[in-house]
């Protein structure tokens, strides 16, 4: 069912070699009835998004707060969103999934090079929560390992004695 005048969001990190998937996402949004497609990405992804003819972009990163980006997306009242994944599956891309969820879009498509599927808001929220917890876990493991490493390396350096090379 078409949605006259509805906006569609295309969220991507636009890494190297994703042009085909991004074009597929644009086609999907248009076939779903999006009258306009707004690209959401970083300043790094802007050239790739402009390159496929998206005139309207919402860029995050480089000091722009997440809340400002979410506010700008919601202001467009998007009816749908498409998340472009880099890998074969739907791993990673937590930031894009969270933005899609917070954008207020009622329908979300996940587009990966190997295939695509629609996902409900509740399922997306559950995925964002699970991946968020997983990210916190990874950060905690990383912080614990790096703390242990820092203590051991520093102690070893102190016991080994000072050297000219230790200064900046």
């Amino acid at each position, binding site marked *: 069912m078409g949605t006259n005048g509805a906006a569609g969001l295309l969220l991507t*990190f636009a*890494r190297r070699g994703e042009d085909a998937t991004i074009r597929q996402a644009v086609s999907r949004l248009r076939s779903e009835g999006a009258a306009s497609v707004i690209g959401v990405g970083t300043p790094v992804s802007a050239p790739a998004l402009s390159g496929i003819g998206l005139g309207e972009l919402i860029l995050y990163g480089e000091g722009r707060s997440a809340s400002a980006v979410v506010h700008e997306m919601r202001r467009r009242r998007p009816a749908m969103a498409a998340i472009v*994944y*880099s*890998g074969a599956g739907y*791993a*990673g*891309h*937590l*930031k894009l999934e969270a933005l899609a969820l917070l954008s207020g879009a009622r329908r979300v498509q996940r587009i990966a090079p190997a295939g695509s599927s629609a996902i409900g808001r509740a399922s997306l929220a559950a995925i964002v929560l699970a*991946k968020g917890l*997983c*990210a*916190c876990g*990874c*950060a905690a*493991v*990383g*912080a614990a*390992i*790096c*703390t*242990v*490493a*820092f203590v*051991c*390396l*520093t102690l*070893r*350096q102190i*016991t*080994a*004695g000072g*050297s*000219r*090379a*230790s*200064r*900046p």
Partner: protein
Amino acid sequence: MKATIIIINHNGCDLLARSIPAAVQASDKAGGYPVVVADDGSTDDSIAFLCRTFPEVRVLALPRRGFGETCNAGVAVVETEVAVLLNNDVVVTPEFLEPLLADLAQPDVFAVGCKFLNPDGSLTDTLGNRTSGTWRGPFLSIHHETRAERLEGTCPQLYANGGAMAFCRDKWQALGGFDPLYHPFYWEDVDLGYRAWGRGWRVLYEPASVVYHDQGSTMKRVHRAAHIELMSAKNAVLFTWKNLLDGRLLRRALAAQARWAADDVLIGGLPHRTRALRRALRQLSQACRARAKEQRERIRSDGEILMLSSRDA
């Protein structure tokens, strides 16, 4: 100065068919230096092929032990002042040896790296040309020069790519060769160059010594891409832990490493980071010992190493 050419091989029989004749030709042209193949436990026809086709080449048939340790074993049999390490996927040009030997005649030069070209002669995405580094984010960020106009003269570089490098055997022995900390592969050549600069020596880039490198052709056929990424990440972590002696930079790098691990989930596509940190943790005591040794023997700071190695000639 006399040199020995050492070619490192693992299951690269077809690659040797191209690389050995070029190495033998270059050796003959320079005066007939020995050519040695250090074989890292090949299970293909490499050894038989070498004995059958190139009887003048000395073959060291070693058990499987990884790139760095195979190189160390190969250099251990060298009796000349200079050793030249070549990957089995590197095809040298006939005149590649003389410029390297001329550079190594300078007393403070430890190693010299060749000019790497793709098999088609292009520079696109080549690795190992005029390397430099900066401590940015979780690791040492390494830059490989690919602009032709920046690759015209002999100049300092951070490290000589282990795929094609010449070095003074005595300095290699003083440095202890490639550190087994980086088993099975990657970052051992960066570590060696960094330590050489730290001791007060220099590493040079020599564009007059041209080699053709089919990058990663051996690695990709032997290891899965995910394993290569995991080992590269693990060794990047260990390199930082071992070599970054500047306390302020170390704190920043370690904080960035924790964030880097979390990014696995945030951005996706690289699900090996936390695993790499865990793997590195298993070698922490080994890294601590190596770091203490490094601290005793280094005379240049991290900043000086990077500044001196990135200067124009």
